[in-house]
């Protein structure tokens, strides 16, 4: 070929690590293979799971088909109202202090939060690590800077709260702290209410802007209201902050891309500024957020019966996750696997931050066809009675083989 490409300076990028893991899993012919990688809830049978409340809402939507017209740039009003209520509770959601935008699920909500904060002059970020791998590249994508601190202690396998406090005490004013409200990804190690109280105190004192990312609301305690405690506490204290919210997990609407971003503006006079800024920013990104998933969610939000079904769905999922965690601990205890493993029941949500090393993880894949992530994050939902013992035996083998 004689022409040189106009894109000849491009190099081939490594695929997202988790995507790579998933394609390896797909190619693996082993009948015993176990997928505990990507953060998607699986049913007891190991298959995908459609929330009963969503299945019902889809039927209602089909029977009252609103068509596919453009929605509002801000988002579908009923959806936003429900999203606000889910995060902030009935009372605070109706006080008029929130600027809200329907977004392309959680990633889109974070992206809009970063853009919004940049418009308001805030580009200096703090992030507890380890953390969801996308945060840093997302902040850098919009020209922000990320400083990391320890969220987690490998030795205690728990939150490193001293590090959190020290960082809040030393970070410059107007820094943005990214916090996950519950089911911390990937460690599953959440803050207690006392710890949140201390964080809120420091945030106020030191003029910090919190960005609360809530991707798994309900999966920690089984109760969506309880899992929103931090958001409501910050609101009560008169703090101004941003919430990024996803319904991918707690309504199982992953691929439909259903989420929202809320800015808490304590001085109502400036809510329209924030609101119009969000719409203007969104206009040059994608104009409108997709309608279908948000309509399904709206139906759930607006129907008291489906709300009830939704609460039960979330409670049942959490119950199953907790029972899987218990069974993993029991099996590893029975096998007398070297090490302490009670973090599996202490951690919350979909993930068990196992502490397995990359080498042990590689062996899990090559010798046992067990696909976790290289950082040792195990999606507990990928386990069920059919494969828990196989999985635990594999963990036991790699821990004994490599240490």
């Amino acid at each position, binding site marked *: 070929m004689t022409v040189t490409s106009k894109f000849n300076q491009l190099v081939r990028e490594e695929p997202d690590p988790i995507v790579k893991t998933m394609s390896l899993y797909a190619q693996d012919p082993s009948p015993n293979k176990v997928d505990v990688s990507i953060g998607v809830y699986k049913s007891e049978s190991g298959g995908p799971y459609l929330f009963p409340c969503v299945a019902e809402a889809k039927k209602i939507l089909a029977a009252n088909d609103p068509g596919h017209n453009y929605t509002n740039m801000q988002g579908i009003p009923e959806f936003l109202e429900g999203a606000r209520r889910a995060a902030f509770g009935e009372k605070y959601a109706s006080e008029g202090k929130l600027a809200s935008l329907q977004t392309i699920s959680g990633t889109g909500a974070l992206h809009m939060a970063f853009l919004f904060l940049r418009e308001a002059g805030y580009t200096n970020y703090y992030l507890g690590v380890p953390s969801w791998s996308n945060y840093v590249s997302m902040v850098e994508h919009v020209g922000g800077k990320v400083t990391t601190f320890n969220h987690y202690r490998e030795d205690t396998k728990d939150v490193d709260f001293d590090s959190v406090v020290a960082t809040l005490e030393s970070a410059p004013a107007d820094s943005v702290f990214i916090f996950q409200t519950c089911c911390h990804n990937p460690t599953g190690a959440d803050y207690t209410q006392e710890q949140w109280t201390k964080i809120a105190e420091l945030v106020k004192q030191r003029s910090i802007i919190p960005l609360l990312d809530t991707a798994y609301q309900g999966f920690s305690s089984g109760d969506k209201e309880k899992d929103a405690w931090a958001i409501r506490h910050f609101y009560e204290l008169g703090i101004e902050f941003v919430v990024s919210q996803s319904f991918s997990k707690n309504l199982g609407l992953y691929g439909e891309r259903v989420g929202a971003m809320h800015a808490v503006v304590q001085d109502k006079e400036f809510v329209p500024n924030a609101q119009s800024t969000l719409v203007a920013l969104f*206009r040059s990104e994608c104009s409108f957020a997709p309608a279908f*998933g948000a309509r399904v969610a709206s139906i759930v939000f607006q129907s008291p019966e489906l709300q009830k079904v939704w609460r039960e769905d979330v409670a049942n999922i959490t119950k199953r996750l907790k029972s899987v965690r218990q069974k993993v601990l029991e099996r590893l205890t029975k096998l007398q696997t070297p090490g302490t493993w009670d973090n599996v029941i202490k951690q919350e949500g979909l993930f068990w931050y196992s502490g397995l090393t990359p080498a042990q993880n590689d062996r899990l894949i090559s010798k046992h066809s067990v696909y976790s992530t290289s950082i040792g994050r195990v999606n507990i939902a990928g386990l069920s009675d059919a494969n828990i013992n196989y999985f635990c035996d594999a963990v036991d083998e790699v821990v004994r083989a490599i240490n």
Partner: protein
Amino acid sequence: MYRTSLLKQTARPSVRVSTRQFSVLNNQVRKWSEIPLAPPDKILGISEAYNKDANTSKINLGVGAYRDNSGKPIIFPSVKEAEKILLASEVEKEYTGITGSKKFQNAVKGFVFNNSGKDVNGQQLIEQNRIVTAQTISGTGSLRVIGDFLNRFYTNKKLLVPKPTWANHVAVFKDAGLEPEFYAYYETSKNDLDFANLKKSLSSQPDGSIVLLHACCHNPTGMDLTPEQWEEVLAIVQEKNFYPLVDMAYQGFASGNPYKDIGLIRRLNELVVQNKLKSYALCQSFAKNMGLYGERTGSISIITESAEASQAIESQLKKLIRPIYSSPPIHGSKIVEIIFDEQHNLLNSWLQDLDKVVGRLNTVRSKLYENLDKSSYNWDHLLKQRGMFVYTGLSAEQVIKLRNDYSVYATEDGRFSISGINDNNVEYLANAINEVVKQ
């Protein structure tokens, strides 16, 4: 603390000035409204004013979506059918890929580039893995992603857009870091293409610029180039080594048949296969031609020099999209997949649905023309224009007069959405226009 609070403390001398204020944001919004054509808030303002108007004869010509003869939005029957199939078969909602599913990508490739199996060049490019297709957040999202992509990897930031063009083009590309500049396209005083100046202004631009081409139903003028004129433009593109970026939002609305509206694409493919053009990119959506507006279903495709280049480009697209929104929404794309999946036999009914929609637009266009007074104004341009809009050539003053005196609501650039016109109001509208033009 937000600036919102700081603003309240202006009396205190210690207020930091290094952070930007929310008022700065407003300046930016104001700047956007200087862009030619109506920015979104204006259109919303028009709709609001329309909704409040008590006149029972009022007409809304601002809507950008299709309405039937009774003024109502429609669901394409073929789309409804596809949704039924989806509802009955869907058992999960898990994420699609960062750039969408292979099935969707292949459907788009077959539809747009291969003319459903009838375009030799397109077929060759597909078989050689020289087309990278990514599902995006409809048309806006596709423009934004390609804008970001070109800003990162292309050698030139200058992007040439026709004057006039869709208002959001300029905003999206500027926001993505490119430098949009107009090339001559339309002469409002003559209500016609200004082809001589179009060529002249393109020829005067620096080599290697990016050039935005509307594939069909130019928005907002509705005035497209003839195949002969495209030849001349593509000769300039080759000579100047421009990078063609094609926007195709209305495939099917020019002729009623989507396969007839891809002449430009087919010619570009031919040039690529002949090695006369290295690469080009296409943004398209199913918002209009399947009526999937709110579901946000569209794509970008980049035609590359080799399968190897395709792999690099695809990996960079994924890296770009992942920190913006991770993956696109699936409902609309699954509908598209079903419509193009032969086992469901829906393709022909969709083509018929689309033909019917375009048929109505053309009928209304002719009816409006018939009822307009040709003695005081030459309306022949109406019949040359294609698509959802009539670009009337009326002045902002005339548009405002139509609004105030006749409750006819349109944007001040004189772009009328034909969707708002039907058998019941076409005569009223024509009469109002005639009166305003006479004055």
